[in-house]
Each structure stands twice: as structure tokens, then as C-alpha cells.
């Protein structure tokens, strides 16, 4: 840190302390605050997520659909290429995929499905359809948690016109807090964590909501899990 930066920092902190009518925080109080940071306690969680896992899946599907995401369900990842190909056909979209280099997606037999071409890596501006691995689905508001990393580049969530997120049904949780708990177990905070609720949109022109502002126009979620697990109401 440069000397002038340090000077400005000290001046700002001194002004704040003057307003608070004290000097630097006494050590015993600082310890209590550090303990709170380490414990990061939860505040109240909305009761709408007090459901069993099947109930959470239903809530996730209902909320994501309400926010203009589309949802498909498959029992097993072996069905993934055909499910995606079928979605692309109905939407009249190109069959070229840029896929997250995640082992769970790399293990899929993409070449077995006619006309589908698959490439792994980050997205380039020309890519039209991406396939991302979902880290968690948050039932509270139908929100996906998509952290960045070597296996899950952020550009897949932003550049293509259509983003397809593959999500294991077991990864659906109730509140945002549960998803962050899982993230903490997985390691340090990734560089980028996107919470995504539906496709990109804007209402800047005369307050009329239009999908597809700068990010994807379509967000398609493929839920992977055994049939009959709260998915019967899912919308294809």
C-alpha cells in the first residue's frame, strides 16, 4: 500500500472514530466481532422453505418457472444428450454446445447423439448454446448458484444466447444460506459466485419487461434425479 493511500485510510478511519466518539475498537470488542465473523450466524429464514426434499424440488421448479426459466427432468445423466438435443430441436437452436469441463459432464457420451457437437471450455462471443454444471438450486426463489472455477467458467453463464444448466436434484436446497454452507465446505470463496434467477431481462424501455438484455435470452434447467421425486409437476 502506498504512503498516500495509507494516509487517506488513516484519515477516513480517524473521522469515523471521531464520530463514534472513541479510538480504535478495544481488543475485547474486536475479539467479539471476529468471533461473529468466524461464526457468520444466520438471521431469520423465510418459512416457505420448511419443506422436505421433494417439497423443495417442487418449490424450486415452481419459482424458477415463474421467473421464465424452463425445466426438463431426466432420471440419469445418460439421457442428457438426447434431452438437450430434443430441447434444441423444439427451440430451433443450433446443435453446437460449449460445455463446462466438469468431470460429470465430460463423462457423458455426447458423440452418441446424432448432429450434436460438443466442445469443452470457456465460452467465446460466437458460442450460441452453453451447458453449465449447477452447484446448487435454491428453492426459496428458484435461483441457481453457479460458482466460477477451473471446471465451471463464468463466461458460460453470460455470452451464449441460451444457457443450459444441468443440476442434480440432490443439489436443491431451501434458502440461500444452505447453498453457501455447501460452498464453504467445498473450500474458499471462489472468485465469482453467480446467483441466477431466470434469463437476462430489462424493463428500461417504457417499463416493459423484455427477456434477453445482455446475458442469455433462455435459461433451461435439466434436473437429474430418480423419477417420482417431487418432479411430477415439472414443466418441459
Amino acid at each position: 500500500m502506498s504512503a498516500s493511500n495509507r494516509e487517506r485510510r488513516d484519515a477516513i478511519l480517524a473521522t469515523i472514530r471521531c464520530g463514534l466518539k472513541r479510538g480504535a475498537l478495544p481488543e475485547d470488542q474486536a475479539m467479539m466481532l471476529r468471533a461473529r465473523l468466524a461464526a457468520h450466524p444466520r438471521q431469520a429464514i423465510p418459512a416457505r422453505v420448511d419443506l422436505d426434499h421433494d417439497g423443495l424440488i417442487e418449490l424450486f421448479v415452481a419459482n424458477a418457472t415463474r421467473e421464465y426459466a424452463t425445466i426438463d427432468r431426466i432420471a440419469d445423466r445418460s439421457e442428457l444428450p438426447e434431452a438437450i438435443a430434443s430441447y434444441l430441436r423444439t427451440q430451433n437452436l443450433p446443435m453446437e454446445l460449449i460445455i463446462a469441463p466438469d468431470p460429470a459432464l465430460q463423462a457423458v457420451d455426447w458423440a452418441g447423439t446424432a448432429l450434436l457437437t460438443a466442445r469443452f471450455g470457456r465460452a467465446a462471443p460466437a458460442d450460441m448454446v452453453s451447458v453449465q454444471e449447477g452447484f446448487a438450486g435454491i428453492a426459496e426463489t428458484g435461483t441457481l448458484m453457479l460458482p466460477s472455477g477451473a471446471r465451471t467458467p463464468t463466461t458460460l453463464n453470460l455470452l451464449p444466447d441460451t444457457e443450459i444448466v444441468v443440476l442434480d436434484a440432490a443439489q436443491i436446497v431451501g434458502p440461500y444460506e444452505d447453498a453457501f454452507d455447501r460452498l464453504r465446505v467445498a473450500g474458499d470463496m471462489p472468485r465469482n459466485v453467480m446467483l441466477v434467477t431466470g434469463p437476462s431481462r430489462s424493463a428500461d424501455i417504457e417499463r416493459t419487461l423484455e427477456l434477453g438484455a445482455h446475458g442469455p435470452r433462455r435459461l433451461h434447467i435439466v434436473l437429474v434425479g430418480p423419477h417420482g421425486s417431487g418432479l411430477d409437476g415439472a414443466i418441459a
Partner: protein
Amino acid sequence: MLNTSPAFKENARRAMDDAGLQKALDRAKKPFAAVRAAAVARLPEFEALRETAKGIKNHTLAHLDFYLEHYAARVEAQGGAVHWCRTPEDARTAVLDICRKAGAKTVTKGKSMISEEIGLNEFLEKQGIEPVETDLGEYILQLRHEAPSHIIGPAFHLNREDWEESFRVAHTHLPADRVFHEKRDIQAEARAVLREKFTAADVGITGANFLIAETGTSVIVTNEGNGDLTQTLPRVHIVLASLEKLVPTVEDTLSLLRVLARSATGQEFSVYTTFSTGPKRADDLDGPGEYHVILLDNGRANMVGTEFQDMLRCIRCSACMNHCPVYLTVGGHAYGSMYSGPMGSVLTPALFGAEQAHLLPNASTFCGKCESVCPMKIPLTGMMRHWREREFERHLAPATARTGLGVWGFFVRRPALYRAATRAAAWGLGLAGRRRRGHFARLPLAGAWTRERDMPAPEGETFFARYGREQRGR
């Protein structure tokens, strides 16, 4: 940068005669309140969450020095840099230094009120760096050389014709006779034009809705995804944030997020809520190589410990202006500040001085709607009253107002005389009012007031007299 706050009255008058603006305001009035009410109704815990949110920010402000230091240490531990800035000039210089070192020619920008506050675009242009606003609303304002009129819907004062006209003027590489069939055609054109800018930019500048001390993270909330493209594609990411954006933990942030979108747009959650922590990691496939935070004070540290400290709880949701009868009549530009409506009337004098902005705290009917919808329970009317007191003490109020208050003060200190005078006035106005169907279109000495609206006639009796009568009758 502040321009026309001292001319609030003239601005307001012009705004009321502006047919295009009035059309835009009429379009927004009902939905603003309706979407928030619907979102609140869907979450039974909303009221309790407001209290939680207020508690989180009060706790943070009471220990702001500690949390700022902790936050900065976390950012630096992850390879980011924090640039402490007391003044807008400090902030502009810090941004320019980073851009120069990166050899930047083009800078993409997500929506940031701090950028407006420090006048960044103008400054960068003068230095030969092209700033490109990427939020759809901010983009058209940049094309039109206009200021935002709303903190989250910056271009809501424009109509479709304005969009089409500006795009035809600016996008000369496209056929001049193209037709915009739908509003989505306008949006699609902006998307295509800005895509090229996103990929060409050397530096991306975003604001921040929250800074998290626990993890050294900045959080942005958008619906378009422009902020994410801005902070992901260029080599350098600069975050512009003022120091009251601090929140202790991720969990605290989540509680604030639960009230933010509902209060702002009536959404349960915005489309993109993104947590950014430092530069690209060793094995990341994308993301910026540098991560800088411009941490701006600009008068906020001075608010700590004063009667204006509560204003630092503000999370910029815009609920106060969306429900304000004054804002919804004159729009945001009349305030002459990037912060308009009730929150702007309190914040603008604190940031830019009461001499410049003393008229703004008077632009309120004190109906209290702003406070009743504020997710952070900020006592906005109380703080506007504090500003009015200061205005009076510092002799910033106009002579007529001072004389009027002097006359009122003379009577109010003589209760018998006051009652007699008000009784006579109420009786006289009540009598005259009955002949005018209960409303006065014009009144002596109140021409400025009755020019825009009718004065309802009193019933003929003062409250005091009626109260006394009814008490005796019980």
C-alpha cells in the same frame, strides 16, 4: 457531480410542463407501488426482515472502522487492491492510474451511482479514454448526454420515440430505414452494439451493492447481465463503492438481499446477484487478472455519529422515490442531483453541502410514505426536518419564508391571540369555501401553492375548538 439543485423550483416547474416526462411518470406511478406491494404480500416475514436489515446496518455502522479494515485486509489477502479515497478527485485519480497502467483505451461500465457522484465519464473522456455505459438505461443516457433520473431505472423518463430517435442518430452503421416493430427490437440493437464493446474493453468498471467484510467480496445486483460481462471479460476489474456499503458476513448480506429486490422492482430476487472476490485464480479459465476497489468517503465518514447517520443504512432500492408524491410529479432531474426523491433530499445536502441543496429537503409533503416503505426503516422525514432546521439557522431560507415563520411565531407564542386568529380564519375560509364547492382555486398570499392545485376549504371550525367541544360533550 452536482449541477442544478439550487434551481429546484424552476426545474420542477419545467418538469410539470414537460408532456413527455409526465407521460413517463404516469406510466410508472401505479406499477411502482403495485409491484412492491405484491412482492411484500408474498413474503409474510417481510416486516420482520426490515427490522433485521436495520439491525445489521446499525451494527455495521457502530463498528464501521473495524469492518472496513477487516474488509480491506481480506481483499488484499486475495490479491486485490483497495484504494481509499476521501474525495471525488482522489477516486478519479485512482481510476485513471489503474487505466493508464493497463494501457486502457476503452472502459466498459456497469451501472454505478458513485460513478455519477464523482463525474467519472466526463473525466475519462478528457483523458482520452472512452467510457461505455452498458446498462441499457445508462447507455441511452450516455448517447443523449443526459443524467439518470432514477437510481435504478435511470432512463425511465424517456419514451419509446426517444429511444428510436437516439439509436438512429448513434448507430449510423445500420440501415437508416430500419424499422423497430417492437420494443424488443430496440433492446436487441443495443445488445448487438454493446457486445462488441464488451469484448474490446481493457478495463471493466462496476459499482457494488454490498461489500462483505468476512470474505473481502463485492456484490452487484442486476437484471440485464451487463455488470457481469463488464467484470468478467476485461483484464482489469474496478469496483466503485462508497464506504457505507460494508456488511459483516455473507449471511447478513443475504438478509439485506431479501428486502432489496422486493422493495426495488417487486422481484423476489434480481436475475443476477454476483459475488466477486479478488482477481482470477491460478486455474480459472476466465475472469479479470486485476481486481481493484475504489473505496469512496466523500462526506460519509462525517455523517457517522450525527443525526444523519441513519441515512448510511440506505441500500439504494428506490422504494422511497417510487412512492413519493413529489418525485412522481416532477421526476428525478428536477432535484439536480444523481440522488433524487426522499433519499436524495437527505443525502445530497450531506454530500454536496446545504448551500447547494437546501431546497431539496423542502421538496416533501411529509406524508411519510417514504419511511413506511423503506426496507431499512430510515427516518427520512425526520432527517429532512433536521436539514430544514439547519437551513433556517444558517439563513439559507428565502426572506418570505422567514417572514412568514416570524408572523406565525408571534401568534403561536400568544395562545389566546393565536386561537382567536385561527378561529376567525377557519370561519371565514369555511364560509367562503361553501360558496366555492369546498375548494379554492386561488387564495391571497398563497398563489404559488394554488397555482398547481386546489386548496381544500376548512369546515369552519378549528381542530382545537372542535376537540374542546367534543371533550366537553363526553
